[in-house]
Each structure stands twice: as C-alpha cells, then as structure tokens.
C-alpha cells in the first residue's frame, strides 16, 4: 500500500502501460495484476480524505474514502478483475485498454471527494467506454456508439453546468448532499439521472449495450449505471422523487424484457429493473435503505456480469443471442448453462443466492417507512424479474425447443470467470454477513427468517406457474419451429394496454430524435452549407479590395461610435 495513492490511478495508468507489454500471457498477467493491486491499495487505506490538489483557486479532493465509496470501489475492482479473466483470450488492444481505463475512471468517480474531480472521471468514463462498443467494428455498432457517446457527453455537460451553478450558489465544490432545492442541484440530478437510466432517459442503455462486443457488454454493465447510483446516494439520498422514479424504473422494463428477442437486450432491460430497486433505496434514504441500495448494487454487478458473461459465451460459440434462434444449448454448453442458472437464481432472489440477501434490505426499509404502494410494486417487479431474467434467459438459450445448434463449450478462461462470479453470488447469498460488514451503516437484519424465506418462495412459485401456463398455452401451435416467435407474439397481444400511452410516446420521441439526427438535421446543414460551405460567402476567398473595404467600413463605424 502506498500512502494516499488513488487506486483509480493504478487502473488508469496501468491500462496504458499494458500496451507496452507484449500481447499474450505477459500482457494478460500484467492486466490481471492491476485490479488486484488496486483492490489491495484500497483495502490498505484507512478511511479519510487524501490527495488534495489546489487548482483554479479550488481545493480538489481526489480521494475520499468512506463506507459508501469503499463498497463501490471494491466491487468495481472485482468486476474489472472478472472482466480481465473473461477476456483472457482476447487479442484486441482497443478493448484491453478500454476495459481497464473505463473501470479506472469509474473507480475515480466514486472516490472523488469534489464535484470537479467527479466531472473529470465522469467524462473519462464516457469517452473510454464507447470504444467497447466500437470495438465490435460493425456499422451498426458504430452508429449505436455515436448515439451512446452523444447522450453520455450530454450528461457530462449538464453535470458541468450544474457544478458551476452549485459553486456559485454554495461557494463550495465538495461533493456532499446536494438536494433539489437549487438550479445547480437539479441539473446535476438530471445528469446523474441520464447515467442511471431513469425512465424516459434510459433508451441509450438498451440501444448501446447489446451492440457492444462480447467482453464489452460485460464491462459496460458493471460501471456507468452503478456509478450513477453511487452519485445519487451521495448527493440525493432521501429525495422523495426518487421513490416514484425508482418504482417506475423497476416496473416498466419487465414488459419490454418479456417481449424482447435479443437476450442481451433482455438483460439490458432487467438492468433498468434492478436499478429501480437501488433508486428506491436511495430515495427512502434511511440507513437501512441506503445499505440496501449499496448492497444491491454490489450484488447486481456480480450477477449481471455473470449473466452477460454467459450470454457472451453463447454469442461467441453459437453466433447469436436471439431467443428465437437458440435453444437446447445445455447439451453443448452444460457448464455455461449451469452458471447462467446460478446468475438467474441470484437475480431472482432465490434464498441462498445474492439478491435474496440484498434486495430484501430495500423492501424491508420501504415497509418500515410505510411506503406501501412502492412496496407492492417492487414485490410485483420481483416476480417479474424472475419471469424475464430468471426463467426466460436460461430457458430460451439452453432449453426450450432444440435449435439443433451444436457448438463447443465456452473457452476455459470464460468458464473460470463465470465460476468466480457464480461463487461470489452464492457466497453473498449464504454468508450475507460478510457483505453487510462493509456497508456504510451497521446492519441489524437477518434475511433468513422463516417468514421471509417462505414469502419469497411463494412469490417465485407463482411467477414460475404463470410462466409455465403461458408457455403451455403458447407451445401448442401447429409448428414447433416457430415456438419462440409465437411466444413473442403472444406476449405482444397481452401487453398493449400496459405498453401504450406514455411509453409509446417516449419510444416515438427516441425514434424522432434519431430521425432528426439523420434527416431533419440534413436540411439545417444544407442551409448552413449555403453560406458557410466551401463555396459559401463566409468561406470563399474574397477579392483584396473587398477585404480592405471591410477594414475601412469598420474604421468608419468605430469613428462614429467613438465620437458619439
């Protein structure tokens, strides 16, 4: 441990140094060492504030370690480590650098003690992460990446504007509780909201994540949104509006996840759903709720990484992650299927799996504070998550109708990464005390009471029954080959009432935004090109006489102005 060294710097500088190492196991080993060293450094530092820098007449605190930032920084290191192991076979320097630079920026963001450092890391995370999308090197991914970058930069600009306003109003850039009472606070709230994928601000997530590379999606899923949850917990804990926003976030993606065919996109929707739980926890703002939000973010990073890793392995081996084209893969990829089921059980909050120990903190806090309506909605969302993530993902990928695809088991390094993640998921579920010990506030809560276990099992059983019934009624069309499509179609028929309304409008707005980007802006550009284009009057080379005429005209204007 080096006194006062920011662990983020280990990742950031190390990711660039990694380029100097020869490609292959030497570089991989070096990259593997980085998150381990970072985590050791983090572990060794006592809580406190370090690395103060004086710049622009402001005091920057680039490293602030307390319970809240420690938990996030720790799990970010674990996620970065898992990603390095998962990508052991990868030989693409772009993804290798971005896969560590981006986690480094995220670690820097959660450790930042002031808003300016936060902004710097916020932007670095945005810019470095887009390369994980572009690294897929398809035109589709390129465009999705551009849209992603645009939204991320917009969030950064809002943050900067908010920070400047806040500085002027409050006279301090310390990153403490901000609240919605000032214009600056509101702008910062929206900036965080974009990254946390608040409803109506969330489309970038479903748009971009499934377009990233196999490794890219795994890395992306861990950091940006959790960084935003951290920022909300730091700046806006106990903000009532977050309870409503979070409840909505937990609810709406369920329907979309159910009808979606691309399984990685299904997982992207389920991210919204899980983030909703955390946002509610932050909104309630009691120590128990905040602990719940942090713990759930911790667990979510691990099981979501596990699920994305398993789907990445499927994409790598089978060449597709469309539910309609997959099925029966358990014969070829039994271990991957097993790990996927562990991830699915974790996200669905089965007893002995991680979310059971973490999500219940949030639900318990909601109940204690008497937020009954959000509580019921979250309960429904818990059932829904089992439905779309817990059953749908493994069912369509590995079971269902046999698609006839016969491929190899996932590469060994991927299996190791998935195994590690699965072990952590189960570990948290079985020994929740270890996770509770590093939370910001002391936890006096035991998830394994008889009532809680039974309630949860009932919830899961009913949800499974609903799934089974629907599959049963849908499975009987004449041609088996169209099972998945039929299934989609069935759900689309069941949904319209819920999906219409605001939601359609939001989707329309997103499409309109895209059209505007591609079409409407074209007309504006044409109009600008008329004057500013190469042949336009503003860009053409003028005759010397006309230049001089301008000079004389301006002199005359100045003389008149000064004489008056």
């Amino acid at each position, binding site marked *: 441990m080096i006194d006062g060294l920011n662990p983020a710097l280990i990742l950031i500088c190390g990711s660039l140094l990694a380029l100097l190492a020869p490609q292959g196991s030497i570089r991989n080993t070096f990259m593997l060492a980085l998150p381990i060293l970072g985590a050791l450094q983090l572990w060794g530092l006592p809580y406190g504030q370090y690395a103060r820098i004086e*710049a*622009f007449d402001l005091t920057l605190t680039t490293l602030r370690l307390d319970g809240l930032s420690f938990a996030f920084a720790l799990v970010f290191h674990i996620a970065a480590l898992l990603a390095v192991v998962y990508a052991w076979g990868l030989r693409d320097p772009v993804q290798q650098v971005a896969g560590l630079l981006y986690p480094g920026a995220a670690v820097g963001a959660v450790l930042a003690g002031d808003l300016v450092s936060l*902004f*710097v890391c916020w*932007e*670095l995370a945005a*810019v470095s992460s887009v390369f994980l999308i572009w690294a897929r090197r398809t035109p589709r991914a*390129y465009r999705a990446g551009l849209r992603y970058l645009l939204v991320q930069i917009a969030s950064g*600009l809002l943050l*900067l*504007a908010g920070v*400047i306003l806040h500085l*002027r109003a409050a006279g301090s850039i310390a990153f403490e509780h901000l609240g919605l009472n000032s214009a600056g606070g509101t702008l910062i709230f929206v900036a965080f909201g974009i990254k946390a994928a608040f409803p109506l601000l969330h489309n970038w997530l479903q748009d971009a994540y499934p377009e990233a590379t196999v490794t890219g999606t795994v890395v992306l899923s861990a950091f940006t949104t959790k960084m935003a949850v951290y920022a909300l917990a730091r700046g806006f804990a106990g903000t009532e509006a977050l309870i409503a926003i979070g409840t909505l976030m937990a609810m709406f993606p369920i329907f979309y996840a159910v009808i979606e065919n691309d399984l990685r996109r299904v997982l992207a929707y389920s991210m919204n759903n899980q983030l909703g739980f955390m946002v509610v926890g932050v909104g309630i703002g009691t120590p128990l709720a905040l602990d719940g939000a942090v713990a759930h973010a911790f667990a979510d990073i691990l099981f979501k990484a596990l699920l994305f890793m398993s789907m990445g392995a499927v994409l790598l081996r089978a060449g597709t992650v469309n539910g309609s084209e997959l099925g029966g893969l358990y014969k070829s990829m039994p271990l991957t299927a097993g790990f996927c089921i562990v991830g699915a059980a974790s996200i669905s909050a089965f007893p002995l799996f991680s979310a059971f120990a973490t999500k219940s903190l949030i639900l318990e806090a909601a109940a204690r504070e008497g937020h009954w309506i959000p509580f019921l909605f979250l309960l429904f969302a818990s059932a829904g998550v089992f439905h779309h993530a817990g059953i749908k993902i493994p069912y369509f990928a590995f079971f269902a109708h046999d698609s006839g695809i016969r491929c190899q088991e996932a590469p060994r390094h991927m299996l190791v990464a998935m195994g590690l993640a699965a072990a952590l998921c189960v570990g948290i579920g079985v020994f929740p005390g270890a996770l509770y010990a590093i939370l910001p506030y002391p936890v006096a809560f035991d998830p394994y009471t008889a009532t809680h276990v039974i309630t949860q099992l009932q919830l899961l059983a009913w949800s499974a029954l609903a799934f089974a019934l629907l599959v049963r009624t849908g499975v009987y069309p004449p041609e088996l080959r169209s099972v998945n499509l039929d299934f989609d179609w069935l759900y689309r028929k069941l949904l319209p009432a819920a999906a219409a309304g605001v939601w359609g409008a939001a989707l329309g707005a997103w499409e309109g935004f895209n059209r505007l980007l591609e079409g409407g802006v074209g007309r504006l550009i044409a109009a*600008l*090109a008329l004057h*500013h*284009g*190469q042949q*336009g009057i*503003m*860009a053409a*080379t*003028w005759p*010397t006489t006309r*230049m*001089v005429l*301008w*000079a004389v005209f*301006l*002199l005359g204007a*100045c*003389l008149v*102005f*000064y*004489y008056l």
Partner: protein
Amino acid sequence: MIAHLPALQVVIPLVSAPLCALLPAGRPAWLAAMTASWLAFLIAALLLYQVLAHGPISYLMGGWPVPWGIEYRVDALNAYMLLIVAAIGAIVASFGRTVVEQRLSLPVNKHPWFYTAYLLCLTGLLGITVTGDAFNVFVFLEISALSSYALISVGRDRRALVAAYQYLVMGTVGATFILIGIGLLYVMTGTLNMGDLAARLPAVSGTRTVRAAFAFLTVGTAIKLALFPLHLWLPNAYAYAPSPVAAFLAATATKVAIYVMLRFFFTVFGVQFSFETMQLDKILLPLSLVGIVSASLVAIFQTNVKRMLAYSSVAQIGYMMLGVSLVSVAGLTASISHLFNHALIKGSLFMALGCVSYRVGAARLERMAGVGRSMPWTMGAFVIGGLSLIGVPLTAGFVSKWYLIVGALEKGWWPVAVLVLATSLLAVVYIWRVVEVAYFKPAPEGLKVREAPLALLIPTWALALANLYFGLDTSLNAGVARLAAQGLLGGAP
C-alpha cells in the same frame, strides 16, 4: 550579462538572421537558426523567472533615459508572451530540416534565406513584445510582417503567392492604421514611451484626435489579430504556407497582435478610458461572438484540413476577444491563458498535419483515409491536440474554457456561457471529421504510408504532451496569466 537579457532577447535572433544567409545551404544554416531560437527561448525563460521573482524589469537601450531613449519593459504579461513566442519558435525550428526544406518552393541554394526570414519574423515578434516604446512596436511589427509574407509565399502550392499578397495588403493596411494611431497620440502628448503616454493621455483624452487615434488602433490591431470580419487574409495564408510556417504563425503572430491590443487599451489608454468612456467592449463582444460561431461553422465544411484549422483559429481568436470584452480578472485570465494554450494546441495540430502531408502529399481530408492506422503516432498527437482544442478536461484547452465560462457567469451572461459550450461541440464536429476519416475509413488500395520520421515526431509530440502537462499543472498557463490580468486591470505596469 543577466542585466542585458531584454536586449539580447531581440539582438540574438536579429544578428543570427543575416548570419544564416551567409552560411552554406543545408545543415549549417539550419543549425544556426535552431541555436539562435533555442537561445531566445532560454533568455525568455530566464526573463520570466526574473520577473516573477523580482517584479518588472526596465532596460534602457544604450543608456538613454526615458522619454528620449527606447525603453524595454518586461512585466508578467510580456515575459509570459516572450516565453510563448520563443518556445514555439524553438520547437518549430527543430522540426526536421530535410523534410521542411523539401516542402519549400525554393532552389536549394536559396534555402538559407528561409531561415533568415524565419529568424527575422521571430525577432519582430519578440521585439513587439519586449519593447516599451510605441513607435518601436510599429517597427518590429513591420519586421515580423514583411518576413512572414516571405515565409508564406514559399509554400509549394502556388496559391501561396496570392495568399501572401493579400496578407501583405491587409497587413500593411493594419500596420498603417496602427502607425496613424501612434502618430496622433504623439501629436497630442509629445512622447512615444508607453508609460509616459499613459501618464499624459488623461489630460487630453477628451479631444477628438485621441478618439480618432483610438479608432485607428482598434481597427489596426483587429486586422492584425484577425478579428472577424477582418480575418479574411488568414485562412489562405495559413492553408497554403508550409506546415511549419503555419504552425509558427498560427501559434505566435496573431497572439502577439492580441498582446499589442491588450497593451494599448489596458496600459496606454487605461481601463477606464477604453471601456467606460469609449465602450470598446460593446464593439468586441458582438464581433467575437459572431466570429466564434461563423468561423466554427465554416471549419466544419472545409475539406482542406489546414484551412479548417485556420478557420478554427479565427474562432479561437474570438474566444480570446470574448475574454477581453468581459473586462474582468477571470475574463482576461481566460484570454491570456488561451494565448498560451492555443499556441500549444495549434502548434501541435499544424505540426501533426505537417507530418501527414509529408507522407501523404497533401493535407486534404480525402487523402487522409486510413492514416490513423498507418501513422499512429502522428495521428495520436493530432487527437491530443484536437481534444485540447475542444476543451476536454485534463488538457490545456480546458483551462482557458473554464475561466471563460466562469468569467461569463460572474457577469451573469448566461447566453454567452451556453454559447461557449455549444461552440465547443462544433469543434467536436470538425475534429471528429478528421478522426473519422483517419481511423474508420479504409486506406486506399495499394497505397503504402509509413509513419513520419522521428525528426518530425519528436517536436510534434513535445507540444502534444505539453497540452496534457499544462492541463494538469496550471501554475504557468493560468497562474502567470492571472498575475498578468491583475497587472493589466490594476493600471500602468
């Protein structure tokens, strides 16, 4: 020796210039030019150190007392300017010799004259900055201008001749206006020393002659610094000049003109007269805003990358003038630190383009397809310069943008702050166009492009890394700029 540093600052390049012409072509002439410019840089660094440690330096040429003799006066502002000019001068002079000479439209035996012109231009720019005498400013202005016309006209593209001619006409008009302004001031006060002028002007400031002098100086310096709409000489001059010349002029010439404007309006006329009586800011503000938007838009549509950067320079000058028109410490700090930062930015961008056009043959956008892969180091430097131009945090460009926005908000000028942010996005667009072509378009079949030679890469990367360094350590580019800004607003030096 140390006591004569202000004089040596000008004398060394001045004496070396004819020496270059006498030396044989090839290595000797180049070595002389490089030695002289690095010496100038060393002197500038020593001067800045002295000024920061002991306060302003006054040096009397030939021992003649003020107001009869010429005084060289160095305070925080011009020591800082000297460092910018001399640093860029030294780095550009180190840009690979054979490569530079290959891009000139001169026969080999005339190459030494190129270095002569280069050193004379450096002499002129350093002289303008160091002197405390108004007429001396004009003399050095002409030295630098005449030599820069020559430097531009030796570009390989024959359009360089027309560009240099137009620059000559406009530059002469500008210099004449400045001379008329100085003449009118001399008539009214009977002195040419700046400190003396500042002391005597208030007594006659109500007269129309002084107002006319003010108008002539406004327009004269505005032409020289390429304020919109008097910028039209600039794009072609930079686009068709050889890349090192473009890098040198873009990083220094307009900056020195801005220095002249600051010196006259803040030191000689005084803040109160310039901005309260004459309300200069009412003229500068709209012109700089329109210039920022319009020039950025034009840059987006350019296919000649050098011309694109030239228009971007016009927009950047708009930012600097915007800072001046705020008339506050934050605004002036933004302007003065942008003098420094923009010199680093445009220096690295033009030099990176010099590397590209050396290998590819031209700095046209369509020729740069795939260059990002075949010339990774060159384009790496270009990207760093581009990020700094946009004003991404951790780069030098961010520092000046930050102060500019803070300055605008202090005044409560919301729309201006928003405009600064929005036009940064325009910079993203035009830099992105280059990055997209260089990195994402496949290289044309059968074309083998190699990385630029080290002799070009080292100076280019020196500037690119400086962009990153001064984004982190702002004690020089923002700290000294702030001192200079306080000096300007506080009264005579």
